[in-house]
């Protein structure tokens, strides 16, 4: 994205943050990370150092005013960060400086030269390029002379710059200020705010770049995730509409359905929306789509918000779709979770992470309507727009199912409206009782850039799968031109 590197930058070590900051942190300058307790500041600092060592060969010093070296080491071990090894290799130093007011008497003038000397000694001992001070504000709890402390902290930041180390300083969020002690006044180069919110019992972590002198940066709030690999940020709102439109066509996975499209299927890299009330075979069509992708030997990622993987597989078996071999060959990955397990942003992050790790060629979300329960319609819409954009950029074949209420119109909550306008293809499924007989039908509402069957097509479901009424093939008399 942004390529304005007037100032030299170093990688942040946080997945996705380099993109948001246009290349990373300002090299050799202090960076302030602020946020309330438990928002991930300490982990942010550790990851900055560990990745700096492992990926950029930049040794680092961690000055901890709170947690001991042993505690820090234990806390991040589960993330695969082996601090003991890095310390043994002399790539990392942890200096624990506990500050407790009760232990210290003050009389007369003093300065923080002891801290400077310790820091200098630690930096020089391993040739550190990165420093973390976590959290510097603890000094205020331990010493009374606030004016003196402020002057010393100002001097410390100047000193760090002269030393040429890239320093991450953490600070506790204040009531009206970014940090309790107003550290943001002293750090003018780069300030990042971490936020941890719980809305409707769903926790969401967000990151915002408050200030970044001399650099363009994303101004949005970016969701970030702390999982077994550490912190990752996904720059999802920075997408642009510059993806190419492929002209290759892929099968829908169901040959009779292919026949309803002039070119025999969906455009590659397109997105398809399948709407219908309960029991109209949306998931079955999604199953065919997954099968079609597997038959092309292309990995498929299926997000199931309503069924467990075993249940999906069993249900598909009853209509002759056997997905088991593809699960075994790891061509199909079913990721099942309750929508309410995470906030919307977290769902999106999980998707993004799996996109990177699993590299699917097709993604199915069944159903997207479940997500409405996790956020307001506006948020859901924004999330789906980002999701569709992300998939488009990766040229991934996408399929979303969406449950409509039996009474409501297709546009009753705005979600379907939003997605349908973004989707390239829209199939509408119905399941009606006519004279005591069940009548299933499928209508291609739209298929962008492709001629398609114009009328509703009736179909039946049997153990052999879906079969269409014999007459329904594409003829020139009943087609509609896609835009």
């Amino acid at each position, binding site marked *: 994205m942004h390529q304005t590197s007037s100032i030299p930058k170093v990688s942040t070590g946080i997945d996705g943050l380099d993109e948001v900051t246009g290349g990373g942190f300002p090299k050799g300058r202090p960076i302030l990370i602020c946020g309330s307790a438990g928002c991930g500041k300490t982990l942010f600092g550790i990851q900055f150092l560990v990745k700096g060592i492992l990926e950029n060969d930049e040794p680092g010093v961690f000055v901890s005013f709170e947690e001991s070296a042993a505690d820090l080491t234990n806390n991040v071990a589960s993330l695969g960060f082996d601090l003991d090894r890095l310390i043994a290799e002399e790539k990392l130093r942890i*200096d624990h*400086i*506990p*500050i407790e007011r009760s*232990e*210290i*008497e*003050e*009389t*007369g*003038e*003093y*300065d*923080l*030269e*002891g*801290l400077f*000397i*310790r820091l*200098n*000694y630690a930096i020089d001992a391993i040739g550190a390029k990165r420093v973390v001070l976590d959290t510097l504000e603890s*000094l205020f709890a*331990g*010493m009374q002379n606030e004016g003196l402390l402020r002057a010393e902290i100002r001097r410390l930041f100047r000193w760090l710059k002269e030393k040429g180390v890239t320093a991450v300083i953490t600070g506790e969020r204040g009531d009206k200020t970014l940090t309790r002690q107003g550290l943001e006044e002293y750090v003018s180069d780069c300030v990042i705010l971490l936020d941890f919110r719980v809305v409707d019992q769903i926790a969401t972590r967000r990151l915002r770049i408050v200030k970044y002198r001399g650099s363009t940066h994303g101004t949005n709030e970016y969701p970030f995730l702390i999982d077994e690999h550490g912190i990752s940020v996904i720059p999802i709102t920075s997408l642009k509409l510059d993806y190419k439109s492929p002209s290759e066509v892929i099968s829908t996975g169901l040959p009779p359905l292919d026949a309803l499209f002039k070119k025999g299927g969906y455009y590659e890299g397109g997105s398809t929306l399948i709407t219908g009330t309960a029991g109209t075979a949306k998931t079955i069509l999604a199953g065919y789509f997954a099968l079609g992708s597997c038959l092309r030997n292309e990995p498929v990622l299926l997000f199931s918000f309503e069924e467990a993987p075993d249940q999906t597989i069993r249900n598909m078996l009853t209509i002759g779709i056997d997905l088991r071999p593809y699960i075994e060959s790891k061509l199909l990955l079913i990721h099942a979770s309750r929508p309410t397990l995470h906030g919307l942003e977290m769902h999106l992050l999980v998707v993004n992470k799996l996109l990177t790790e699993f590299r699917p060629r097709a993604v199915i979300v069944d159903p997207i309507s479940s997500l409405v329960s996790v956020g307001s319609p506006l948020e859901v819409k924004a999330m789906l727009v980002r999701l569709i954009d992300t998939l488009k950029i990766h040229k991934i074949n996408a399929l979303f199912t969406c449950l409509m209420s039996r009474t409501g119109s297709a546009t009753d909550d705005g979600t379907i409206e939003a997605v349908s306008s973004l989707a390239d293809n829209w199939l509408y499924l119905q399941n009606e009782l006519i004279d005591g007989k069940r009548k299933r039908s499928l209508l291609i509402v739209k298929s962008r850039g492709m001629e398609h069957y114009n009328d509703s097509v009736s179909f039946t479901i049997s153990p052999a799968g879906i079969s269409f009424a014999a007459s329904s093939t594409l003829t020139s008399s009943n087609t509609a031109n896609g835009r």
Partner: protein
Amino acid sequence: MEDEQRWELRLYVAGQTPKSILALKNITRYCEENLEGRYSIEVIDLLKTPQLAAGDQIVAIPTLIRKVPVPIRKIIGDLSDEEKVLVGLNIRPLPSKNKP
């Protein structure tokens, strides 16, 4: 026994700064007046031995540490307030040589 109690103090400085010189002058005077013959003051210059800063958790300079008698006491600053220093180190001011 009380009178034989020895006082081991340690003063951390960083070079010959006015604050450090003043602190050493102050503590020497208080000791001479109150602990004559029963004290020792070790001056550690962190500019020369920076690795020693971590041991006593030195952040501020100057810092005075009372190593003996235990428990360890820590006073930061130029030690210009005599009463505060004596209270901080738990030294009972003389001249009364009588036992309490």
